[in-house]
């Protein structure tokens, strides 16, 4: 993990060194021309398409609207989102709590290290068959798979964040006789904050992967189920529509997450902005 932290530090400096930006309108034009051209090209190129595999974009969008803005919303989208959110929150909470415990106890860290290293190296989707055997098919299984498969980045990053506490801060907190609770609340957790969030972002990405995959193999509703079902029944526009929807959801989830991160870690982004002159 060490290189990442160094890389992050370097990035901070790069970001602040970033030279003067062009005019906002020019920037907007620069940033939007390519996506616009691509979408227009897709629209025109596929407009009269007879190909089974590449239906017209208009058909895909109609399918998207028909399948996902109507009854599909409650039948498939909301259950997926609910399961995803539950799984992600459980993974996040467990990762942070156990990460704090392991990070603060060297004995515990040494004891669990081999098992943790093995479990986090496991490609999470291979847990699916076990999940099906233990939980059967349905929401509990989907949630359990996310919680167990996505917890590791947060856990490891929290451990590393706790460990990264400066020795002088540790001395300071002891010499001012802060209680254990105060140390955890005011020092250990905020200090690990940036790394916890970096871990949470990966946990988020894995959670999305896992909700999709677990619904593909062990669910009777949800986006993953819909997507695989449409592929297997050769419902091509539906497959395209589902893929687009998932892409959009991934994008929005990431955006929301970044919003929350910058809100919670206000001090950190402020410091990074200021580090140009005082690092």
């Amino acid at each position, binding site marked *: *993990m060490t*290189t*990442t932290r*160094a*890389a*992050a530090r*370097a990035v*901070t400096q*790069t970001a602040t060194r970033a030279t003067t930006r*062009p005019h906002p309108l020019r920037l907007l034009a620069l*940033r*939007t021309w*390519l996506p616009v051209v691509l979408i227009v090209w897709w629209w025109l190129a596929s407009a009269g398409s007879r190909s089974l595999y590449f239906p017209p974009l208009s058909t895909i969008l109609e399918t998207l609207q028909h399948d996902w803005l109507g009854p599909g919303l409650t039948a498939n989208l909301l259950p997926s989102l609910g399961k995803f959110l539950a799984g992600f929150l459980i993974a996040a909470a467990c990762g942070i709590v156990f990460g704090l415990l392991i990070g603060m106890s*060297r*004995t515990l*860290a*040494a*004891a*669990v*290290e*081999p*098992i*943790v*290293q*093995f*479990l*986090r*190296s*496991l*490609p999470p*989707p*291979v*847990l699916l068959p*076990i999940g099906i055997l*233990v939980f059967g098919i349905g929401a509990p299984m989907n949630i359990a798979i996310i919680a167990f498969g996505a917890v590791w*980045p947060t856990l*490891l*990053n929290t*451990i*590393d964040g706790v*460990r990264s506490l400066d020795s002088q801060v540790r001395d300071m907190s002891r010499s001012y006789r802060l209680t254990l609770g105060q140390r955890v609340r005011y020092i250990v957790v905020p200090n690990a904050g940036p790394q916890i969030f*970096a871990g949470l*972002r990966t946990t988020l*990405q894995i959670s999305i*992967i896992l909700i*999709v*995959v677990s619904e593909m193999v062990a669910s009777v509703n949800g986006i993953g189920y819909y997507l*695989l079902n*449409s*592929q297997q029944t*050769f419902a091509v526009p539906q497959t395209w529509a589902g*893929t687009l929807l*998932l*892409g959009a959801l*991934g994008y929005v989830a*990431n955006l929301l997450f*970044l919003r929350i*991160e*910058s809100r919670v870690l206000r001090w950190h*982004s402020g410091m990074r902005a200021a580090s140009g002159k005082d690092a």
Partner: protein
Amino acid sequence: MTTNTTVLDSGAALRPSPPQARRRRHPAATSAGRFVLGAGTVVLALAFWEVLSRTGALPPDAIPPASAVLAEFAAQLFLPAFWASLWATLSVALLGLVLIIVIATPLALLIGLVKPFAESTWFLVEFLKPIPPVALIPLGLLLWGPSPGMKLFLIVLGALWPLLTQLVYGVKEVNGVATDMARSYRLGWWLTTSRLVAPSILPFALTGLRISAAIAIIVAVVTEMIGGATGLGQGIVVAQSAGALTQMYALILAAGLLGLGLNAAFRAAEKPLLFWHPSMREEASR
């Protein structure tokens, strides 16, 4: 874009904390002590699993005893089919990584150095990056069927972004300060590239590559599980549907060991390549 400290790659995260004002002799203070603790927990966990499974506390039709799984794993090691499926997964993931390097390097140079290019592709990259790679699997299956080519395509598309992002950071970093030094000492193109640019980008490249590798394995396994392309993932699903539970668990164990092995390989590569990097000295300096 905030710093991308993402981390499927926390390689050294469990490294022991620096020896700090310790009061008593600590069981985790020596490497031997840590080994005993770690090995002890593994043995204990396996024994616990064994007992729970034998006594029926765990459903035996879902979780067979540890000893049976370990025995099956050992037996698998002698089966050519096992190595074939392991290789099918690993080779396509490695091939994907090579392709990713080939694609990401020029892209990163362009994005890092050519401002209009960076701005023009910004939205596209930011949109494609968070898309879950598995979302494309059904589409890939639909278009190309369960072929190695499809697997490769999905791996490249899903695992390209971490390396690309890190490389762009690296390129921008070099472009900032160190090149002034190179110019003022008139180092020339070759010396600048080999002694300055490459070593500065290397830490970023390795970080990105490690995350990309983890995602590549995930995508490969999922494609095999869902699409039925040959490999470990397919083996796991086949074993499950055939009710060969011990074999299924043995293959899952193999998948975990494969991930562990990849991580260890990256860590082993980092040590000689990045010996000068502050991260490698952290323990000594604290």
